[in-house]
């Protein structure tokens, strides 16, 4: 079955082509159906491949499609790699993707038919690119998918392009990603220079023979790429702005799949990272810092999607922390659970926004519990999962990362738990402000409030089920021996590195879990009643204002990078180009003109004068010829 793996990306590509080329002649329901069915078909194929890969004794398979680039010793095959890691991502992408496509058919109903088809074609193209990303058997194919998802993200954020801010957000996302890609590309060149190939298997086989300094440089550059795509410090600022796109897009691209591409890439390259402890430390520290910074900003946001966006940034930080401490399986586990609960939360937010006729400010919401019962319950499950309350999925994945981090350095654990507490705080602030208390919106909005249609609630329910239970896929060793199904599944790919997290005594592990769970419960217990009774409506002051204004990071970037760059460009344009270079060129012209004007006086027009000059010249020639030559 794994030889048919090319079908998985092929279906969305077909969907993209149909919807993209025939969008003028397709009805809404037809293009929605095409867009959704192709993803469903991919999911079915992925599932079949999964069952094959799951069997004992499965060896990773490389499925070549055609020879892509051949030049000198560079030989890049367009080939797919089927192994447990890629199959797991296949399932996440097509599974969650299918639900979100289904949801979109209802959510985007108000668009005109061609725009509707355009939306689905972009979405299909995105899934196609994302599948290439995780299926590629070398860095080039990964990079193709990597750029492809960036492009689709750009197109979908700017989907409502008439709004200039949305367009700016799209552009910002693309450019921030490009900065990351710059690092990624140079890493690819360095890999090629070092190994003479870009194939995963070859590179990982030869990796131990290369010097640590080189590997460190390469892994750091790869990480630069990951910070762009996965919205880590310093390149995270595009993700909150990316909420300009339609909400299902935020759920699919900016929560469940694309932003985890960086994690996938590092997990895929974990052999290299294991050889570069410095890079690992950098990854872990960046992840930890991102957890805290994004969580703090999220506390004071009032836009329902912005809160979720910052929480995504923060959760991605956990994944990087996991990668940094060598807990690759745990990081991937968190990708899985996060895909469920964050997609769920975004889709719930979409349902709320749908019901509120486009309103996104939580200060005008409140008391939605009784109007949107399904959304409410599923959102609550999502909150419980992200906050890490047992036995919801987030608890398992997050705590496994934190435990592993403790094994590396207790400081990581401390900051991680602090982040978890803040996460619980802002999530329940969001929950309470939105769903509890009394309704604060306008009469008209209240009249319009309604539960969403089945096409929207069904994905919510399915995702809520997984958000609640997915944790049991990776039960830690302390609970039950050999119950960590995910760990065993991924073991052929991710295990066997030099820097496995040190095992800690099970009593310590119990203690750590107890501390974090207890802390989270206390925070929830504080936040829930507080924001139910007194939703935060007034403008924050002091530190709160800083947090609401995102610590002015955008403004700092603007002042430090954008403005000087523009000034430099202006300088080049106005001074160097016009004055210096053109001045030189025109100066040469003027010099010629000036000298000719002076020489003109020789031309008196008198034939006699000319003849005289001629004679003088002749005499001079004679003199030279007869007397001066030896």
């Amino acid at each position, binding site marked *: 079955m794994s030889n048919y793996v090319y079908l998985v990306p092929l279906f969305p590509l077909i969907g993209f082509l149909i919807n993209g080329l025939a969008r003028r002649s397709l009805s809404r329901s037809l293009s929605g159906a095409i867009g959704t069915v192709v993803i469903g078909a991919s999911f079915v194929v992925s599932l079949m491949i999964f069952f094959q890969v799951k069997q004992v004794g499965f060896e990773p398979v490389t499925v070549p499609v055609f020879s892509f680039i051949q030049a000198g010793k560079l030989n890049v095959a367009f080939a797919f790699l089927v192994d447990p890691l890629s199959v797991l991502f296949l399932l996440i992408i097509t599974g969650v993707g299918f639900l979100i496509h289904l949801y979109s058919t209802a959510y985007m109903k108000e668009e005109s038919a061609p725009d509707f088809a355009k939306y689905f074609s972009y979405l299909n193209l995105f899934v196609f690119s994302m599948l290439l990303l995780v299926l590629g058997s070398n860095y080039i194919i990964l990079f193709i998918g990597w750029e492809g998802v960036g492009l689709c993200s750009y197109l979908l954020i700017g989907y409502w392009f008439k709004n200039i801010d949305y367009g700016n957000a799209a552009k910002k996302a693309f450019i921030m990603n490009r900065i990351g890609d710059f690092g990624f590309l140079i890493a690819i060149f360095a890999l090629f220079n070092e190994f003479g190939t870009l194939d995963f298997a070859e590179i990982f086989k030869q990796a131990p023979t290369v010097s640590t300094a080189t590997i460190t440089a390469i892994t750091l550059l790869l990480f630069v790429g990951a910070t762009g795509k996965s919205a880590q410090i310093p390149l995270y600022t595009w993700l909150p702005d990316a909420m300009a796109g339609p909400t299902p897009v935020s759920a699919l691209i900016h929560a469940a799949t694309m932003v985890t591409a960086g994690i996938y890439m590092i997990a895929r390259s974990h052999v290299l990272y294991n050889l570069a402890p410095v890079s690992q430390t950098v990854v872990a520290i960046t992840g930890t810092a991102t957890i805290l910074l994004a969580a703090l900003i999220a506390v004071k946001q009032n836009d329902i999607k912005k809160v979720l966006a910052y929480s995504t940034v923060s959760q991605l930080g956990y994944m990087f922390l996991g990668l940094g401490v060598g807990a690759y399986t745990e990081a991937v586990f968190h990708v899985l659970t996060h895909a469920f609960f964050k997609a769920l939360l975004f889709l719930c937010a979409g349902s709320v926004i749908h019901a509120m006729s486009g309103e996104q400010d939580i200060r005008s919401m409140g008391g939605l519990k009784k109007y949107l019962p399904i959304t409410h319950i599923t959102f609550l499950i999502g909150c419980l999962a992200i906050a890490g309350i047992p036995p919801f999925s987030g608890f398992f994945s997050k705590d496994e990362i934190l435990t592993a981090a403790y094994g590396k350095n207790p400081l990581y654990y401390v900051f991680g738990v602090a982040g978890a507490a803040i996460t619980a705080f802002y999530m329940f602030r969001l929950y309470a402000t939105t769903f509890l208390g009394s309704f604060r919106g306008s009469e008209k909005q209240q009249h319009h409030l309604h539960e969403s249609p089945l096409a929207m609630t069904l994905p919510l329910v399915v995702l809520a089920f997984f958000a609640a239970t997915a944790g049991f896929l990776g039960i830690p060793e302390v609970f039950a021996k050999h119950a960590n199904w995910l760990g065993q599944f991924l073991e052929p790919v991710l295990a066997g590195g030099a820097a496995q997290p040190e095992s800690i005594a099970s009593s310590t592990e119990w203690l750590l879990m107890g501390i974090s769970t207890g802390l989270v419960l206390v925070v929830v217990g504080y936040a829930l009643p507080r924001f139910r009774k007194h939703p935060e409506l007034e403008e924050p002051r002091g530190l709160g204002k800083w947090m609401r204004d995102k610590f002015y990071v955008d403004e700092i970037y603007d002042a430090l990078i954008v403005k000087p760059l523009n000034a430099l460009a202006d300088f080049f344009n106005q001074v160097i180009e016009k004055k210096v270079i053109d001045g030189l060129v025109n100066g040469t012209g003027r010099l010629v003109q000036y000298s000719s004007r002076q020489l003109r006086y020789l*031309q*008196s*027009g*008198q*034939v*006699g004068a*000319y*003849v*005289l000059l001629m*004679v003088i010249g002749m005499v001079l020639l004679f003199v030279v010829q007869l007397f001066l030559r030896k």
Partner: protein
Amino acid sequence: MPIDNYIFLSLALFCIGIAGVLTRRNAIIIFMCIELMLNAVNLLLIAFSKMHHATAGAVNPDAGINGQIFVFFIMVVAAAEVSVGLAIIAMMYRNTHSVDINFLNRLKH
């Protein structure tokens, strides 16, 4: 007669010609001076031709004949040039009622 005398004579003729071309303003006289210069050259050519024949004629009976042929060429060309030149001067006189070449400074513009 030694060749030097021929050379000095033709040099003197040539210089008179140059002096005439440079100093005189009357086009006809300038023209005559140019003829003078040409003839100075002719004289020189014939003298050298003769000298050459005297020294190398024993080996090559044709030696020096080129010089004589050149002279004929020059005479033919000079005749042609005179006919054109005089025509120009005649036209010039018709237009300006003068043969003073200082009026002809159109080249300046």
